[in-house]
Structures are given as structure tokens and as C-alpha cells.
């Protein structure tokens, strides 16, 4: 991987928009030490640092992908702000609200971005649980069809259904169950 390829923030953004995995990897490796240092110096552990940093990168990544990012500062500052916000939240959840953060960087208010992210996280948590409860082969069936976008024909063969109609019927039943499980716990934010 040539580093010089992503020397500027613009190059990194461009790389991520192009779905260049190397751009993401480069970005990830570039700022991990900074966040890790921040988390560690604010009573966090290595695992928590990794967790928070990944969430931060996801927020950033999805904003780029969704074209909703209005970057008025450096990527570094943005990532730091997001991770800082997430970590504050995490600390509050743990009941250990740090009175004073040891900041090594300047930061911006990014409440909106993180709130959206948290909402998503909640949904995904429920979705994950629902899929878990769904059990096999329903789960794989749905994942193959809706997430991995596999052809109904392939699925039919894979799961050993006699024809695609049976598969479709099976899929419908699974979806029905998932829907029930999901909406049983999921209440849209009011």
C-alpha cells in the first residue's frame, strides 16, 4: 500500500467514495493511535478503545457513503469529536461520568451524528436479536436473499427445496416471523 496515495483528507474521502478498501484501511490505521491514547488516558481499556474507534469510523464511513457529510474540519478532528462523544456516552452508561476529559485535540459538537448512530445501533441490536431468535434455516434463508442478494434459484438448491415456489413460501413464512419478532421490541422513536 502506497501511503502517498492518501496523503490528504480529500484523497481519503475520494478513496472511500470509490469503495477503495485500502483508503479505509489507511484511514483506520492512521488515527487509531490518537483515539486509543484518548480512551486509555480517560480510564478506558484497549478493547473499549477498539470498540469506540470502530463505531467512530462507522459513523464517518456511513456519512460519506450517504453523502451527508459536511466536513468543515479535518477528518482527524471529526473522528476525535465523534469518538469523544461516544466515549462520554459510554462512560455515562457505566455510571462513571468523567467530570473532566483529558483532551489532546480540539473537537466539535457532533451530537446529531452520534444520535443518529445510536438510534441505528439500537435498531441493529434488535434486528440481530430477532434474527438470532428466528433460528436456522430461516435466518440463513433471509440473510441470503435480502442481505447477500442471492438468486432464488441458488437458494432453492442450497436449502434443498423441491422448487422455488416452496422456497418462496418458506421465505415468506420466515419473514412473517421476523417481522413479528422485530416489531415486538422495536418502537420507532417518537
Amino acid at each position: 500500500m502506497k501511503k502517498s496515495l492518501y496523503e490528504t483528507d480529500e484523497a481519503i474521502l475520494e478513496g472511500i467514495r470509490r469503495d477503495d478498501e485500502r483508503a479505509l484501511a489507511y484511514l483506520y490505521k492512521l488515527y487509531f493511535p490518537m483515539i486509543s491514547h484518548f480512551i486509555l488516558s480517560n480510564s478506558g481499556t484497549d478493547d473499549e478503545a477498539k470498540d469506540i474507534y470502530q463505531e467512530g469510523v462507522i459513523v464517518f464511513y456511513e456519512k460519506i457513503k450517504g453523502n451527508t457529510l459536511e466536513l468543515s474540519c479535518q477528518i482527524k478532528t471529526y473522528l476525535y469529536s465523534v469518538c469523544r462523544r461516544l466515549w462520554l456516552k459510554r462512560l455515562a452508561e457505566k455510571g462513571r461520568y468523567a467530570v473532566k476529559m483529558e483532551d489532546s485535540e480540539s473537537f466539535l459538537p457532533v451530537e446529531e451524528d452520534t444520535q443518529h448512530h445510536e438510534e441505528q445501533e439500537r435498531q441493529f441490536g434488535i434486528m440481530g436479536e430477532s434474527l438470532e431468535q428466528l433460528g436456522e434455516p430461516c435466518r440463513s434463508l433471509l440473510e441470503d436473499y435480502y442481505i447477500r442478494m442471492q438468486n432464488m434459484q441458488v437458494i432453492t438448491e442450497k436449502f434443498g427445496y423441491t422448487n422455488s415456489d416452496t422456497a418462496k413460501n418458506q421465505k415468506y413464512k420466515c419473514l412473517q416471523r421476523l417481522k413479528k419478532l422485530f416489531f415486538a421490541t422495536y418502537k420507532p422513536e417518537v
Partner: protein
Amino acid sequence: MLEYRAYEQIESYLNNEMAADERAAFEVLLRTDPRLAEQVREHRKLLHTMRSFGQRQSLKQQLNLIHSEMEDETAVATPAPWKVFWNRHVQTVAVAASVSLLSVFGTLWSVQQLKAPVRQQTAHYVELRREVELLKKTQTAIINGINDATKPAPRPAAFSGTGFAINADGYLVTSSHVVEGADSVLIENEAGQKYKVVEVYRDQIHDLSILKVSDPAFTTFGKLPYTFKTAESDLGEKVYTLGYPREDIVFGEGSLSSASGFEGDTTAYQISIPLNPGNSGGPLLDDKGNLIGVISGKQAGQEGAAFAIKSAYLLQMINELPQTDTSAAIALTLPQKNALSGQNRPQQLKKLKDYVFVVKVYN
């Protein structure tokens, strides 16, 4: 089965797979049937969440991959526990270190400040003591003890000093202490001329002795190039000497640093020529080649403080010689013409060195 059909419809609607007219019909149905609309909304939400969920999962996987890849890269340089500790506490440590350094050096400095007047007092003490010691100090006679030198000789000389001619007829001057208790005395110059001499007069007070060549083979030294100065020389005048602190003749140069000698002795000069045992009895000359004194000694433990008897006292001694034929002869033949003035130093020395002798004393 109806529900199933409805699902198919909803999905194809959401995926934009419906034909235009079918789509229009469905949208009309949506507007009129709130239950269907709710179902479509829910379905869309579900599918959307599921899809994003999938994407998120794969993104997380990718990040985890990157992370482990990064950890592999840095595995070699994985921070040791002490490093983590250090990173966490580096600021505290730095502050503590600077505070302690500051207090240590501050204390040292202030103690130093407090001690300054005290030290001045001790300096007084030292000076006072040195003055007391000064009284006890004796002028160290410069006699070069030769024990092992001149092996081939049947009996090596016990002491040696320097002497110089005062007239052409074989009269020389040296320091009394050089020839003290001598059985026999020999002189030798750079040219290798070697004569046996006897002491003919001694002035204990001024530490001067007059020697005379007693060798029957001796005829004359030749015409002396220097004259004797009767007046006192001035402070700061450039002076030099030749002597035998070792086997070879040695030139030493300095200036006249005081008009009085050891402990205010007015019969001597203080000169700043580095001298060594063996220099005693050597001639002290000024820039113009006038003989202004005879080297006698130096102060022990004091650098650059040597002494020379003033030439006036040498002349006085010559005049006071017992009125015999010898003294008259000396007085008469004292050199009157200076052949050194106006010449540069090496030229002066070349002429001078034949009249400066090493005085070897046997006893």
C-alpha cells in the same frame, strides 16, 4: 395465501419491479387502505433495517480485519506495560521531575548565595595564614644535586651552579652557596673549555664569590662583550639570563618585576624568569647587554618569583676587595665597552655564551 400474495406485491412494489399501470393501481390501493399502507411501511422498514444491518455487519468485519492486520503490523512494537504506564503518567512524572530539579538547584543556589560572605571570610583567613607562613619561608638556594651524572669521571661533582667571567684575566663571579664547602672547583663552558679555579674572595652577606682560574695553561678569556651597570634598572625592563640547570646551557627570559628581593631585600631584584636549581650564579642582563645582576635564588612554592643580586653590590664587593695586586688587576681590567647593545637576542647570546660557565663543585 392471500397474505403471501400481498407480500409478493409489496416486495415488488418496494423493489420498483411493478409495471407502470400495476404500480398506479397499487398506489391507489395504498391511499385507500390504511392497513395495507401500514403493512408496506413496516415491510420497508424491516427490509431496510435488515439490509443496513447486513452492510453494517460486513463493515464491522472489514474493520476488524483491518484492526487485526494493524495489530500484526505493530505486534513487534507492541507497547510494553511500562510503556502504557509511562504514556499515562508522563505528564505527572514530568511535572514532578521538574519540581524536584527546581527545588534541588534552587536550594543549592540559595545555599551558595548564603555562603558567599562566609567564603570571603575564609579567604581572609587563608591570606592571613599565608602571611604568617611567608615569615617562615626561607629562600631556597638553587643547588643542583648531581648524584649519578658524569659517570666516567673518577668522582662526579657534588653540586653545580653557573658562573660568568668578570674580566679577561680569569676572574669569575658565582653565588657563594654554590661553592660552599668545596674541595675543588672546576668550570666549563659551552665550547668545552675546562679550567680549575680557586675561590679568592667571598661576600657571605650578598651571597657572592669571586673565583680565579688557577690552571697554568690558562691565558685569557678574551675581550668581554658586556659591561656592568652601576645604576638601578627600571621596573618592567626586559631581562634575560644564561645558566646551567642541566648539562646544556639554557636561556631564560622575563622582566624585572620588583626593585626589591625576598622580604624586601633592597640588594636584590625580583625577576620573572622561570629558574631551576643550577641557575644560581648566572648573569642577569638587560636588553642592551648590560649586566645588571647575579641570579641567587627563588621563593619556595611561588611561581615566577626569582631573585638576583644587583650589579651595584657586585661592583661594591670588587672595590672592597682586600687591597692586593689581584684586586687592582680586576678593577683595572673590568670591561668598559659593550659589544652587545643594538644586536638582536640570538646574536647577543652567541657572543655571551663563551663567558658563562658551569661551576662544578667537588668535596
